[in-house]
């Protein structure tokens, strides 16, 4: 198992913390991380909808990740809700 820290932006700021720390298996993909985060938020009864987790992207400082990307070894993970700049 590995611990991953995920930086939070936008509506995820409602959680009141800068980052979440989740424990996942070494083999986990971004899709697995998404499921893990949705379950975690349900368990703590956070005021964040599962829909928001499902429609958000995961990214590093370098790129937006694909669902099949392996999480192990990635640095500076973040979850990015749907964007609305400008």
């Amino acid at each position, binding site marked *: 198992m590995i611990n991953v820290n995920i930086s939070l*932006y*936008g509506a995820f700021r409602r959680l009141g913390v800068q980052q979440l720390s989740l424990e996942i298996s070494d083999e986990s993909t971004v899709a697995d991380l998404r499921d893990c985060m949705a379950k975690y938020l349900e368990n703590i009864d956070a005021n964040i909808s599962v829909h928001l987790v499902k429609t958000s*992207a995961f*990214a590093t400082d370098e790129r937006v990740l694909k669902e099949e990307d392996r999480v192990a070894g990635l640095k*500076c993970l973040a979850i990015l809700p749907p964007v*609305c700049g400008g």
Partner: protein
Amino acid sequence: MGRFNPMGKILVAMTESVLDVQKAIAHCRSEDCGAEILFIGTVRNINEGRAVSAVNYDGHKVLGEKILLELCLEAQAQWGDNMNFWVEHRLGVLKVGEESLLIHVTSPHRDSAYQASRYLIEQIKLRLPVWKEEIYWEGDTEWLKGQILNQI
């Protein structure tokens, strides 16, 4: 006689500082460019019928600046290497009327300048990791819905 500029200049930033139009113009103006397009986004006082007092802009600075640079390079590849760009997105709490986005493009000709400027704002709406939390006069706040980010 004008200077030939084989590769245009690009400056991008995600910043908490006030946007500076004069710096953008100074950066982009070039003797071989006869067209300049300046786009400024500002905070509007109403959205979906609600009176807005301010907007809190949240953003992923490192990834955001990388994406802004990619967008400018894409525009250069499509409309001309000799175009110049200054693109800044403001972060933090901005009051109504304050400038949130500055896109300045210079190009040898107007058509490419218009097209590149339009391309940048539309792609920013789709791809830039920025989020708006509207602050209403009644005192409540709301994170706005947006566009789902796709892997490029």
